[in-house]
């Protein structure tokens, strides 16, 4: 009993709440259709959730700093486009190098984000929004004239849609990424500096932390994570496409924040991020499968309209439940 208490004592209330919401969603979904609890269906959700999970891992590091990365959509898309293009340009060598080049690209863009935030001290939300626009412009040039190869290599498909022993590879990738992030956060000086920075940048700097390196490092990892998700998504959907990253911006930030990571930085656990990712994935899935009664369908003629409204409302609602800031004065 005391062992159980000790474990739960260390888990934040938001994380518990997030897991409670996951259970509630599962129960609610199973009332609607019994196939909701079937292992096949759940495994499929985890495979899809893994893409979000990989992105959210990077997003979490940035949010732990108290910053935010709004360049996710086009870092993801551009990494997918560049890696498929490399496979087309460089022949056999390109096929081998496609994924590493895509990841390096993502990390490099992330480092540029970090540079703007750490050295130029532009607010992160604004600088990353600008980088997002520049990337979109670059990709218009890349794909606009002579269109390069956009279909995924075999390795990307293996990562994105393959499975071994019944376990989807994307889920394994998320597990590896997650383990690395937990290791970095818990067992390295870099991880400690991230929390220190998030709590007080000035104090971290005065204690001898190389704050600029921490910022650049976190943004680079976040870029690499988005790029990895982009490469896998290209494999899952067999090709890199315009706007493939757009549906991931709000969900990744929401997953991290709903998982109890404090949006102003300094507090959060990876367990919470896992809960948040599963929560968002299940929510999206339920919104997709629920059939509307005919009278409703007349109102919500475009099916995604209801999805967008419910989605935004649920995120606001959950944040109001447990994501509120302390009232702070003086």
């Amino acid at each position, binding site marked *: 009993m005391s062992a159980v208490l000790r474990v739960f004592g260390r888990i934040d209330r938001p994380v518990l709440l997030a897991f409670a919401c996951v259970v509630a969603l599962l129960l609610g979904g199973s009332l609607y259709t019994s196939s909701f609890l079937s292992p096949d269906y759940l495994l499929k959700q985890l495979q899809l959730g893994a893409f979000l999970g990989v992105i959210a891992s990077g997003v979490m590091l940035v949010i732990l700093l108290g910053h935010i990365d709004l360049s996710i959509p086009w870092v993801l898309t551009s990494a997918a486009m560049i890696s498929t293009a490399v496979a087309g340009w460089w022949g056999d060598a390109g096929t081998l190098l496609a994924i590493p080049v895509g990841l390096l690209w993502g990390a490099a863009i992330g480092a540029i984000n970090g540079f703007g935030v750490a050295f130029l001290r532009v*607010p992160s939300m*604004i600088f990353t929004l600008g980088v997002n*626009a520049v990337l*979109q412009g670059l990709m218009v040039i890349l794909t606009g*004239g002579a269109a390069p190869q956009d279909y995924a290599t075999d390795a990307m498909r293996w990562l994105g849609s393959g499975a071994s022993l019944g376990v989807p590879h994307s889920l394994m990738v998320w597990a590896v990424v997650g383990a690395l992030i937990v290791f970095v956060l818990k067992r390295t000086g870099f991880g400690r500096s991230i929390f220190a920075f998030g709590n*007080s940048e000035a104090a971290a700097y005065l204690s001898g932390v190389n704050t600029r390196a921490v910022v650049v490092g976190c943004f680079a990892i976040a870029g690499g994570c988005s790029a990895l998700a982009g490469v896998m998504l290209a494999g899952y959907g067999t090709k890199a496409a315009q706007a493939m990253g757009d549906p991931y911006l709000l969900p990744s930030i929401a997953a991290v924040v709903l998982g109890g990571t404090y949006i102003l930085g300094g507090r959060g656990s990876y367990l919470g991020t896992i809960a948040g990712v599963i929560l968002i994935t299940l929510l999206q899935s339920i919104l997709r499968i629920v059939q509307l009664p005919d009278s409703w369908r007349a109102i919500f003629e*475009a099916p*995604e309209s209801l*999805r967008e409204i419910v989605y935004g409302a649920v995120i606001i609602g959950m944040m109001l439940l447990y994501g509120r800031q*302390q009232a702070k004065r003086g």
Partner: protein
Amino acid sequence: MNRLRYFLAHSRGALLALALFAAMFAVYVAYHPAGLTIDVVSTAANKGVLLALVAMAQTLPILTAGLDLSIGMTFVLANSLASAVVLGSPAETALGVVLVLLASLLCGALNGLIVVFGRLQPIITTLATGSIYFGLALVIRPSPGGDVNEDLADALTYDPVLGVVPPSLLVLLATVVLVWLPLRRSTWGRAVYAAGSAEGAAYMSGLNVDLGKFVAYTFAGLFAGIAGLMLTFMTYAGEANAALGGAYTLNSIASVVIGGTSLFGGAGGAIGSVIGAFVFRTIGDLLFVFDMDALYQPLFIGLVLLVSVSLGSLRLLRIRNRLELFR
């Protein structure tokens, strides 16, 4: 004399932007194949006015050291709604206009309520409400279309007043004079600035900081609604276009920055943002008259945006002690 010096120091950013705009617009007209005709000016004015109104909207949350990422979606929602209700007899049309303005005001008020009383971060709040507003726009306009009262539309966006002045500029001027200036001079406006420049001190001095923030987001919704109405008058149609909303959100931030408003809140103003919006639009027009390959234009606009937001870092050169950076 002192007042003049004060004014110059106060609005240095906006005045610089104005000079930049004048120079760029002169080049644009000089190189435009048609020269300075009422059509050229009218088209430029129409495009600029839309962004200028959205930029005015974005200015208020930024003045409170916040940000409104839903502003583009409010704009799109107002456009969709206007294409459904601003129709029919003059009375019905007037009612439709009021309805659109009221709806966008409510969108802004909802943002304000969540930020102030919900105590959620503006970014995540407006990202989520943006999703809601876009969903509502889709409910109204599942596919592009609709219609608008054409007499009113032409009067406000097409027929030059006195033969020379584009009417959309007058709408913009009216918004500035009738809404922005009174707001700025009121206690509400003071509270908006105070909330962004020193929230703690403002609170201690008895200013209603919460009210300031609420007012900022609410009026942002109203300005975005006026912009959505104008878009409907220009295109005679409505469309729930997420990409358009996203682009306007982004460009509005760029315009605010070019217009000299501080991203850290508390300094600047909507008039600067209006000028910033015209600068931003003229950059696009210049690319057109100088025959830049259309393929390269999005990248160029993106770079302009990135460079303009980075210009603020020039202040770093004046900082002697790195500790001053950590506010």
